[in-house]
């Protein structure tokens, strides 16, 4: 059953078509990912789905309710983590969550239990009475995610949920998010710039300039760019290549003194390779397809690294910091 349905949605800001006729559906209890470069129209789509913006044309429904004409029903069903933080920094972590619980009509007798367990889960229980302004960016992000699910929404929107998180917190958050559909019956709609992050999605739509250029499962998308690439250095490349062909039926090519192997799930493939080549292996390197690769493949050009909108400097610096991190 589809819980989010979007048909021919467009949104114009003056002459800019931020969203330009997109259609997609997200299945209940799944994770749907929106992958796209800056300015692709991801946030605009989320804003329409969560009733903050009205579309220029087209329809969007959540659990059968139109986001435009039945806003209040839609609002009851959703939780959101916005791209930019929406916490009250003067209030404490507990107070922020408590405000949310009141606003969403969570029964009063459950407030303390729910808030405490949410804070415990994100590892901020012992900081619950600290004002949010004393929190680091990553702590704020985690607090926002906790806030987004405290009222048990049917659909959770996450607009770049890992923005500003260190690699470890990112991994933790992804693990948490990936369990949500099963554990709490939540459908997750998330946006990201990163292919690796999109891996946990059941379906991914790649969006650029307001249009969906492809929509499929992560495996389907990776296949389009040939999946992961493994680089092997061995004591004897020619021998290793024929060995791989013989024992595992894997094709490999020699490039710059390294063997180059394409695989859909590279990480799972490496142990098998090493097993079958015994001690011929000198080094292994795994290269995963990035959004850029998929993008390049589909549009024939690299992702535009356009100037950010004004007031986005902090965001931009966080992003460039993150990009550096990711390249390692």
């Amino acid at each position, binding site marked *: 059953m589809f819980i989010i349905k979007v048909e021919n949605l467009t949104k114009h800001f003056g002459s800019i078509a931020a969203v330009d006729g997109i259609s997609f559906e997200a299945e209940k209890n799944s994770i749907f990912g929106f992958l796209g470069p800056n300015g692709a129209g991801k946030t605009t789509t989320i804003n329409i789905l969560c009733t903050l913006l009205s579309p220029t044309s087209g329809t969007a429904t959540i659990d059968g309710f139109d986001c435009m004409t039945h806003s209040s029903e839609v609002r009851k069903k959703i939780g*959101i983590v916005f791209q930019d*933080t929406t916490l*009250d920094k003067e*209030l404490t972590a507990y107070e922020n969550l408590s405000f949310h619980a009141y*606003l969403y009509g969570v029964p009063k007798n459950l407030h303390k239990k729910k808030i405490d367990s949410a804070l415990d889960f994100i590892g901020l229980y012992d900081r619950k009475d600290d004002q949010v302004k004393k929190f680091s960016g990553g702590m704020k992000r985690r607090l926002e995610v906790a806030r987004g699910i405290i009222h048990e929404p049917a659909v959770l929107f996450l607009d770049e949920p890992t923005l500003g998180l260190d690699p470890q917190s990112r991994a933790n958050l992804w693990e948490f998010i990936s369990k949500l559909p099963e554990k709490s019956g939540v459908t997750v709609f998330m946006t990201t710039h990163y292919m690796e992050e999109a891996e946990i999605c059941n379906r991914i739509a790649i969006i650029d300039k307001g249009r969906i250029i492809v929509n499929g499962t992560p495996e389907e998308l990776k296949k389009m760019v040939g999946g992961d690439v493994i680089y092997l250095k061995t004591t004897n490349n020619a021998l290793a290549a024929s060995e791989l062909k013989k024992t595992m039926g894997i094709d490999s090519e020699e490039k710059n003194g390294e063997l180059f192997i394409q695989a859909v799930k590279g990480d799972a493939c490496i142990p098998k390779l090493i097993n079958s080549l015994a001690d011929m292996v000198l080094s292994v390197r795994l290269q995963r397809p990035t959004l850029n690769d998929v993008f390049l493949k589909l549009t024939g050009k690299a992702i535009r690294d356009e100037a950010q909108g004004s007031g986005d400097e902090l965001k931009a610096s966080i992003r460039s910091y993150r990009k550096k991190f990711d390249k390692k």
Partner: protein
Amino acid sequence: MSTNFNAIYVIVARELIKFVREKGKLVSTLARPLIWLFLVGGGMSRMVSPDMGMPYMQFIFPGILGMTILFSSIFSSISIIWDKEFGFMKEMLVAPVSRFSIVVGKALSGTLVSTIQAVIILMLFPVIGLNIGAVQFLLIILMCVGLAFCLASLGILIATFYENFESFSVIMNFIVMPMFFLSGAMYPVKTLPAALGFLTMLNPLTYGIDALKYMVFPAKSGMSLTHDFSLAVDIAVVAVCSAVFVLIAGAMFERKK
């Protein structure tokens, strides 16, 4: 429905928590009415002719209460601009509560905070030689609540049109100072030239201050220089303006871009 009451409650509670955490702000907002009461009021009383039947400092006392309420109510709506700038407004706007409860919650926050300040100023009555009984004291507070709600809703209505702090504070200064001077706070409306007198009549603050004059000087209800309208008119205007401001502001919040 109960969600909407919860929303109003929690919006007010949030503002109150922040008000208590920023005690410095209270001192600075109380400074303005005190300066006007004692420096301006005290200084002018030497120049103003004494035919009002009371010292000038007493005459302006209701006006100073009105001023306290005007500044703190209208400026309390700055919290809406902050909420827009820091994104917290989105947290409220996506919540399943009516837009009116957001407006009413914000207006009540402003009302509460400015009534607290007005009461602090009101407690100075013995210092300027006024005699106010307990019932009268309560009536004055009630009127302060009504006026504060009206002005806080006006502030919110204005704030719905602005996204950033700079343009909002410019427009606020353009509105607040003229509202104060054209309100009968410092001089009887009747003594103004016709054109200015007309502007005064468009100003809800005029009626609020006029009503406060009835309550602060009950013995002088017949005096033409202390009152400009009947008390019923004063209260009706304040009530109708409040309702109109809240309704328009609620509609503005509902409107999507």
